[in-house]
């Protein structure tokens, strides 16, 4: 099934417009704006509904907003403001037309402004300009990383952990908003503190319904855009707040071996509350035995693609013996790799490790239809662990190592009707370089994609790479090695047959 989908996308991929050429440098397209920039007031937000989801270790926000063009000319640039301290933590920003999500995402670019500015913007380009006084409903979704702070910052080993989240009751917008509402989804009903607003609306604010807290609706047509009303909730979250400050992911394609090797290197950290006193093994043994929830990371589960084999789990000082692998079945049952780190990872503790596995290449690589030497590779952009508390990546470096001699490398992420957790392509920095290994002569072509601020939402995203690879490229290595060995033998024979003896002749 997957292959058909791949083939379908391949056809789309071959259209020139959707292809990103890896050679071009994309990072220079950012727009520089003056310091005191304010967006032109050409839009009005009629209705704004913000869903903030705090069930994981990071913030996931979805904003549905009805936008009307109040200018007399068609407009296509919509500005999305963020406070400067949050701006650098925004990940996976995606803007779509809510009415027709299948049209794909709109392009959103970060705008560089002076660092002293306390509001920074993303600018969203509508594919079709919005005619005067017509409306469009945008669905803006993004995640905010590292913005949950443990409160209290230090707890005892077996105590519950609480996180605090501070945000503005008025959603930040560059344009006037007529109506707005914020829904807060919390992971538990144990919410010891939350801010009750006064004077923003009549009646109780927020309204509670289980673990859902609703701030608003507010009538904010008169409120100037950019007004903030800070609100804090503090809720129980006795789970690790997992952060990988770096994930390096190598995908190596070997045509000869028919193998797709994946290796991932994690630098993990638990951003939860730190231990008030030191770690006590005794208490930990007891609480493990009784199965209490804990803010420490006990175990990670990595779902692997069907057919994954030979997994390994090591760290800087060797193999970690506490892992379990349940292989999947090739059609559609995922394998699962369960890792137990060497020690439980409490708040403030680090753990770095690497895992890797192999796959059969034929499940991921196809030859493009109607071309002689063009191949299409479709692999998950990131995989990573799957757990209820989620995981956030501050920086992800995906390196796809193609066979030696691969040329004309182009890449694309699959952009379906639903969010794939990745930001738009302009936020991904790509680079092509050579990677020499295993007796290469030219070096393999390596495509390096760097992306900041990802969350485990991006697990579902997939990466498509097309490249040209001829038969000669495949033969190059055996021919080189043969030639090399032959040269050595000839040289040896030649030296051996020379009479260098200094005996009497």
């Amino acid at each position, binding site marked *: 099934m997957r292959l058909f989908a791949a083939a379908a996308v391949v056809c789309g991929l071959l259209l020139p417009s959707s292809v990103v050429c890896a050679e071009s440098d994309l990072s220079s397209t950012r727009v520089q704006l003056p310091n005191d920039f304010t967006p032109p007031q050409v839009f009005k937000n009629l209705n704004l509904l913000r869903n903030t989801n705090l069930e994981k270790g990071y913030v996931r926000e979805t904003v549905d907003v009805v936008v009307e063009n109040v200018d007399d000319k068609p407009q296509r640039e919509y500005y999305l403001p963020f406070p400067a301290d949050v701006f650098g933590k925004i990940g996976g920003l995606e803007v779509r037309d809510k009415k027709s999500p299948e049209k794909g995402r709109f392009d959103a670019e970060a705008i560089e402004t002076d660092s002293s500015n306390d509001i920074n913007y993303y600018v969203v380009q509508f594919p079709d300009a919005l005619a005067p006084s017509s409306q469009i409903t945008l669905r803006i979704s993004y995640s905010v990383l590292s913005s949950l702070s443990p409160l209290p910052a230090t707890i005892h080993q077996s105590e519950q952990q609480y996180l605090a989240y501070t945000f503005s009751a008025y959603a930040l917008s560059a344009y006037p908003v007529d109506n707005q509402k914020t829904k807060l989804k919390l992971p538990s009903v144990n919410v010891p503190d939350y801010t009750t607003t006064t004077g923003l609306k009549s009646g109780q604010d927020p309204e509670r319904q289980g673990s859902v807290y609703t701030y608003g609706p507010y009538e904010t047509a008169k409120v100037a855009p950019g007004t903030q009303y800070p609100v804090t909730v503090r809720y129980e979250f006795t789970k690790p707040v997992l952060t990988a400050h770096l994930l390096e992911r190598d995908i190596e394609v070997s045509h000869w071996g028919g193998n797709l090797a994946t290796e991932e290197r994690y630098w993990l950290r638990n951003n939860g509350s730190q231990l008030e006193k030191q770690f006590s093994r*005794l208490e930990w043994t007891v609480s493990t035995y009784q199965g209490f929830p804990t803010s420490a990371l006990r175990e990670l589960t990595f779902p692997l693609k069907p057919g994954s084999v030979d997994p390994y789990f090591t760290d800087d000082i060797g193999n970690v013996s506490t892992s379990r692998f349940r292989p999947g079945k090739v059609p559609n049952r995922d394998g699962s790799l369960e890792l137990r780190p060497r*020690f439980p990872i409490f708040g403030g*503790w680090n753990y770095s490790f690497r895992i890797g596995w192999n796959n059969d290449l034929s499940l991921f690589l196809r030859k493009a239809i109607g071309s002689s030497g063009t191949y299409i590779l479709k692999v998950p952009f990131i995989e990573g662990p799957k757990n209820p508390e989620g995981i956030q990546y501050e920086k992800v470096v995906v390196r796809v190592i193609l066979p030696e001699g691969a040329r004309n490398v182009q890449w694309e992420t699959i952009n379906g009707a639903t969010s794939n957790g990745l930001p738009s392509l302009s936020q991904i920095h790509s680079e092509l370089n050579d990677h020499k290994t295993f007796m290469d002569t030219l070096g393999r072509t390596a495509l390096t994609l760097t992306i900041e601020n990802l969350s485990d939402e991006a697990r579902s995203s997939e990466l498509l790479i097309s490249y040209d690879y001829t038969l000669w490229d495949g033969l190059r290595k055996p021919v080189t090695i043969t030639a090399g060995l032959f040269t050595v033998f000839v040289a040896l024979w030649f030296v051996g047959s020379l009479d260098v003896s200094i005996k009497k002749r």
Partner: protein
Amino acid sequence: MASPSLDVLLKGNSSRNVRGLLRIIILCTIAAAAVSSRLFSVIRFESIIHEFDPWFNFRATKYLVQHGFYKFWDWFDDRTWHPLGRVTGGTLYPGLMVTSGVIYHVLRFLTIPVDIRNICVLLAPGFSGLTALAMYLLTNEMSSSPSAGLLAAVFMGITPGYISRSVAGSYDNEAIAIFLLVFTFYLWIKAVKNGSIMWGTLAALFYGYMVSAWGGYVFITNLIPLHVFVLLCMGRYTSRVYISYTTWYALGTLASMQIPFVGFLPIRNSDHMSALGVFGLLQLVAFADFVRGFVPGKQFQKLLTAMILIVFGFALLGLVLLTVSGVIAPWSGRFYSLWDTGYAKVHIPIIASVSEHQPTAWPAFFFDLNFLIWLFPAGVYLCFRQLKDEHVFVVIYAVLSSYFAGVMVRLMLTLTPVVCVAAALAVSHILDTYLVASKPSEASETKPTADNNQSGLRSTRNPVVGVYSYLSKFFISAMMIVYLLLFVSHCTWVTSNAYSSPSVVLASRMPDGSQHIIDDYREAYYWLRQNTPANAKIMSWWDYGYQIGGMADRPTLVDNNTWNNTHIATVGKAMSSREEVSYPILRQHDVDYVLVVFGGLLGYSGDDINKFLWMVRIAEGIWPDEVKERDYFTARGEYRVDDEATPTMRNSLMYKMSYYNFNSLFGGGQAVDRVRGARLPAEGPQLTTVEEAFTSENWIIRIYKVKDLDNFGRDHSSAVAFDKGHKKKRATKKKGPRVLRTE
């Protein structure tokens, strides 16, 4: 493998080429067997560096690979021996690291991505394969029978005495040193036989390499002069001896002085004086021999007498002067301990505390060498029968190394090669006599022993015709075969059971028979590496210094390079004293964490409480007034940890850290120390100046954090008492504030 080679053998029975080819194939098989029998630990566990010293070598190698050769040469390591640091580049034998560094760079040049760790792990097995080849060459020089060399190669390849130091992962100097030892001897024999400058130079080069690789080079430095000396005494002076020895000495000494750690030792240290003396003596003898050519016997004697008198007068005077003025260093302590096994125990506990410096137990000989040990005298006897120059060498080597092997466990390693040579000579002699005397069958003889395959033997044994009766031939050779087979199985058993444990990772059996890996060391070290500041100083007993440096990457106070006895004694004192005494020591040395090894929960016997007496002894050596070994024994002279333990013992920091909180693990019951089989006191020890920071899963490693000075300027015991009392009242109200023992 066996059947095709036999085919070739049968077809080309008369062909010399086939035999040569067969020999090469057999040698390759032997090398392969030698390598593969050392891979048990990699297969059973993983590719990991073993034990203690290899971790340092590994770390040094990584440094070399990262920073290049010159930086390595000038490496001052401030992450060990805090706060002193260590001039690492000048105090190590760089041969091992440079070897693997070169291999690494060659592989990199061929763009083969090999992890430096894997090179280090596999270096020892790789070199053991080379050792087997070198052994073949060496033994071939000794015997006219080609089977002797092959047998020796097999023995060397799989004898446990050598495997013990060269399994995969035991990345230690001995890994390459034994190869160099054997090969240097081979070149030396070759040089003596040929009297050629080239062989002498090569011997010197490999001797230089050996010096750069292992402190045991002194063995060569003394053995070769002794050989020459004995030859002179036997009246066997020839120009060949002169050429080979002088070339070897002049070049070898210069080569050895290139190593910073050795430096001027070859002309200063008494250990090297015998070589110099023989060098001088040889000049005289050569000159005398030269002069003899010109004068008739009578006058020559007179001349000789005059010459000898003058020269000896000068030499004696010079030696006395130099020794008095202190230019020539007296014999080193380790050297004395070679002659008097009790010496170290009395004078240098630090040397005696190393387990591999203990005298060898008798069963160890059989354990490590199996039937070679009783073939060994027979082989030496055979050497006596021929007694050419090279046989003299084997005899001397045998005598010296047997003595040394008896003194120190570690030197079993130098005994092994000569045992292999002698035993191979003996076995090949027996086989040559009792099997068909034609060459190919001998060549095939060693082959099946390597492959543990008996079917090949039967076929070669069938066409027996000779002067002896069929029965005795069959009987003797069958017996030999059985012994060889037993030897092979013994070696395999010993290797897999005794010598293949990394000792960093422990293995245990689950009730269902599956293997369970106990990985506490790495758990704790990795915790240190990940969750402490990069400059946190770790104090532990010196055994773990290299491991902490290698795995946890944190500065340590003392490590396995025991160059500073006082510093070690300081650590010993801190461990064995009361907290009030230890705390200032810890503060003075900026210690952030203290690491102890505790096996009481799991029954792991190599823990710190069992090593504790050494700490006490070493500390007592420096501070006899403050630390007394006697205080740690009960009145009846027992070393106990339970209720009857002496107060000194129970108040020592080590005891407290080991058993802290151990009681509560047993709920209400009485805690049991499984190593010492002791029931611990009902009330566990209280710690005031350090706090538990991490304890590994099976409690093997316990890490304590040294507390800062108290905020309110109280001493720690009262601060803890205050906190305790406060909490107790508020939270549980069960007992009153617990009274702390303050002593």
